């Protein structure tokens, strides 16, 4: 079985995140890492491989992003993925969902041409854009079924079943491979790379592809042809520090009740 896991390199959410003067996300001047939500996808891919240990399973970590984004692929390899593919090309900078999904789809097709792909796995959302749309777009472009937002994953033969926790119902969704599978952070903690994993990752195959390698024209991607444009990005003014009352001898509840009453909540 051949599994491709899409991993995104994102600015660290716990550090300062900012925009460039052209209103694109600053991906170069800030600390970045493998999107934490994509670690869950890598973890589930590894668990599928472990559960189906009698099969020959290859896991390829695929990332589209600037030079530094190779770190995301490396982390996936350290966790246990077998191969890495990094699609990097100056022309990709500033791409929106449409172009990103195009590049990912073309890269999956190139991998598929070498060895038939069975599963394309994704996180539930990237931690910077939070769109949650790329997996559905990938499915549309590849004409694969989408089995997305899985909080529980089960595979058997070429069948995949997930639990999807929607707003009004919890559903069981099923489909046959090849398909696009996205997983939520309810699937269970992702493993940390072990020392052995970190050492082993250094020897794993890693390829860097340009747009030409996957047959995408530079004029199809990037900021200048994006189908959406960001007109302004403004930092939200910090909230003004409020009053903090220390509860002594049970005074806290009264002070809080007075505050709520002053705001007409009670």
């Amino acid at each position: 079985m051949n599994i491709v896991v899409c991993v995104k390199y994102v600015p660290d959410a716990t550090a300062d995140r900012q925009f460039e003067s052209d209103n694109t996300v600053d991906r170069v001047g800030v600390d970045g890492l493998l999107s934490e939500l994509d670690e869950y996808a890598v973890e589930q891919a590894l668990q599928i491989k472990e559960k189906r240990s009698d099969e020959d399973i290859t896991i390829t970590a695929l990332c589209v992003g600037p030079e530094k984004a190779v770190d995301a692929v490396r982390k996936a390899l350290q966790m246990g993925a077998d191969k890495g593919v990094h699609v990097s090309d100056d022309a990709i900078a500033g791409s929106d969902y449409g172009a990103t999904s195009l590049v990912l789809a073309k890269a999956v097709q190139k991998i598929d041409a070498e060895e038939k792909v069975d599963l394309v796995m994704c996180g539930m959302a990237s931690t910077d854009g939070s769109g949650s749309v790329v997996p559905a777009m990938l499915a549309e472009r590849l004409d694969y079924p989408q089995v997305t937002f899985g909080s529980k994953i089960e595979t058997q033969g070429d069948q995949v079943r997930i639990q999807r926790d929607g707003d009004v119902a919890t559903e069981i969704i099923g489909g046959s491979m090849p398909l696009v599978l996205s997983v939520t952070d309810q699937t269970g903690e992702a493993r940390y790379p072990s020392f052995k994993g970190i050492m082993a990752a250094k020897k794993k195959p890693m390829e860097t592809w340009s747009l030409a390698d996957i047959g995408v024209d530079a004029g199809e991607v990037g900021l200048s042809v994006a189908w959406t444009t960001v007109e302004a990005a403004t930092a939200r003014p910090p909230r003004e520090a409020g009053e903090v009352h220390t509860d002594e001898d049970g005074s806290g509840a009264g002070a809080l009740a007075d505050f709520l009453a002053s705001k007409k909540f009670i």
Partner: protein
Amino acid sequence: MSEVLVLVDHVDGAVSKPTLELLTLAGRLGEPSAVFIGPSGQGAEAAKKLGEYGAAKVYVVDDTEVKGYLVAPKAEVLAQLVEKTSPAGVLLVSSYEGKEIAGRLAIKTGSGLITDAVDVADDGTTTQAVFAGNYTVQAKVTHGTPIVTVKPNSAAPEAVGAAGAVEEFAATISDSAKKAQIVASQPRQASGRPELTEAAIVVSGGRGTGGDFAPVEGLADALGAAVGASRAAVDSGWMPHSFQVGQTGKTVSPQLYVANGISGAIQHRAGMQTSKTIVAVNKDEEAPIFELVDFGVVGDLHAVLPALTEKVKERKG
């Protein structure tokens, strides 16, 4: 005036409040047309309400070939309606499903897509809160039909009294769209409390509850509020995931948010930072949640909340 398509979010014909908000926003861009996918009987009934809130037309699409499959058939329905009506835009609710339908529709129609808008202006400029609410972004679709998913609570629904004229629309669903099947479905049980994303007041609990949510629920009920939880509380199995507030849970923007035993991690803030008034009870005065509060109490929630609940009940009489 061009039509603006609004995909109706409903449960057995009962139209959700966020759908009415979309109709109000759609009215700024053109003439709202609701798209109701479901049994035609339910569609005719829903059309009354959809008309009341601004839908001039209601396209009713029989769901026999749609239900039972995930997302893709609905995207085909909308793509065919876009083809037929050349609308000025398509608006959907920002749910898992709404976003995924929007994503597929964007590819099918070669259109730009904006997700999680909290406002849409007359000229189509959208407003989004990004990076955990630390930035406000204005964006616009520049190619194809603007497709925008909008977060619940982004507009006040206006009863403008439009025609709500029902038009049956027969869509063709491809075999390829039927490849992801809904094998089983278990409706979510109603909690009896207000819906988290729609509530005016949300009272949340985190790891600091130690697993005892009774003080949080007691205060919520006294205030008529919805109950929320941090991921730590959900991961510990104390509350179902549907109660989670934050990056991978719900985004709430109520009049009042009360965080109890929650430290205020960036991923939690992402779901509540735009609340109008924020209050916290936490026994650690260094907790980052206190950077956000309008009023905070440093203290043990197990003592403060029950006493507060009593006072709220007294004052409310």
